[in-house]
């Protein structure tokens, strides 16, 4: 059950990556950054699978995942939020502050590398949720660009953050139960990727209509 869900999620992720890549050079900077984000997710998933096959711990990849996701999605939002004004300054400020905090934290405690870093999960997710709500705010009276992607990011982040927060707890659960949170996570990830797929499809069909006019 869990493997089917997880692999379907990965499959849609790969599909998204391929689809987004086909339009890579024709599209905006934000689109490019998002494609890179999808590529990063793909690489980390594959890497994690390889590490599982080698029977070694892949937990340290979570740091690459969270920080990479944070950096790329911040860049993504920096592009799609209003270029001049408060919002963009907040994006830059959050970006610098979060990376500083995490840098100091990792420098002071090396053992953090091999378990879930709760502070890292919380601050990166919260900042991204704030940025996503900025975008929703802007979408109230504007053209709905990256509407579905934004919904996906918001929903997946809200759900997965809680799951990752209790991640350290799960390693101490009995084998019978410790898979359940990951089933949930796989399910949410699949949903997330499907929403991204919908956005790509809408974007593409919209472009088609535009070129017909």
């Amino acid at each position, binding site marked *: 059950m869990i493997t089917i869900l997880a692999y379907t999620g990965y499959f849609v992720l790969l599909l998204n990556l391929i689809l987004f890549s086909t339009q890579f050079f024709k599209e905006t900077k934000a689109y490019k950054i998002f494609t890179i984000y999808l590529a990063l997710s793909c690489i980390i998933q594959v890497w994690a699978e390889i590490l599982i096959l080698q029977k070694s711990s892949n937990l340290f990849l979570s740091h690459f995942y969270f920080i990479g996701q944070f950096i790329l999605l911040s860049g993504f939002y920096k592009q799609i939020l209003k270029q001049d004004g408060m919002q963009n300054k907040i994006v830059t400020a959050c970006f610098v502050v979060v990376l500083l905090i995490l840098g100091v934290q990792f420098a002071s405690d090396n053992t953090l590398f091999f378990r879930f870093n*709760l*502070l890292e999960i*919380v601050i990166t997710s919260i900042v991204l949720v*704030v940025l996503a709500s900025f975008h929703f705010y802007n979408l*109230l009276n504007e053209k709905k660009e990256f509407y579905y992607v934004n919904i996906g990011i918001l929903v997946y982040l809200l759900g997965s953050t*809680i799951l990752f927060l209790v991640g*350290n*707890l799960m390693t101490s659960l009995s084998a019978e139960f410790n898979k359940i949170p990951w089933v949930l996570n796989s399910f949410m990830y699949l949903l997330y990727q499907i929403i991204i797929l919908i956005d790509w499809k809408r974007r593409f069909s919209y472009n088609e209509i535009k070129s017909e006019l």
Partner: protein
Amino acid sequence: MKPNTLAENEIIEIIIYSCVTFILMGIVLVLFFYFSRKKIIQKELEKKDLEIQYQKELLTAVILTQEEERKRIAQDLHDDISSKLNIVSLNSHLLNTPKLSELQVKEITTTIIDLTGKALDNSRKIAHNLLPPVLEKFGLQAGIEELCEEFSSSKAVKVNFTCNTSFDLAENDRHLHVFRILQELMNNSLRHGKATEINLVLDEKNGKKHGFYTDNGVGFDQKIFENQKGLGMKNIESRVTFLNGNLKLQSGINEGVKVNFNF
């Protein structure tokens, strides 16, 4: 491994982080809601302001037209009637002068009769212009037909009128607006558009009456037009609004004018 083997401080850490996360996300949600509401209300206010602005403009247009119309009527009365009655009055005084020969009396009375006749004619014309009697007695269709004939008789323009519907005399108050709209459109076509042919079709669809008006005049640039509507056009708009109808105007330079409206 059992859950209780996990260090207590780690569990506390997880609980605190979860709690803080939920609170922060809640705050984000509330702030988002607060600012969105503010934004929506602001947009609505802007919309209302625009509406008020538009209504003010319409009102100004109405007042201006009213004054213009008064001026025209005053001029008509002055030029066509007062001047003639003046001469009539002078001539009547002349009749009082003693020792007039019979020929002179006859001459003066002829002038008086002639001029009163003309004044009468003119006053009828003015009244007719203000409100065509045909419209009141025989309804919109007859009114428009007469209007078309009047325009056609000037030889400068040919008006084709097709009516595929009928008009109830009871609704004449509304029809007067339609009549005025058409009058204004034709005036514009002739005066500004230099049109030589005008087509007008009145139709009925789903209980609503539609008018299709086209001319072959010089037309105008619609983008410029939107910004500087004349008094007449504003008047037409307010009349259509009054009739709960819609007006669609389409034109381009050297493309004539197409107007669709319903009422």
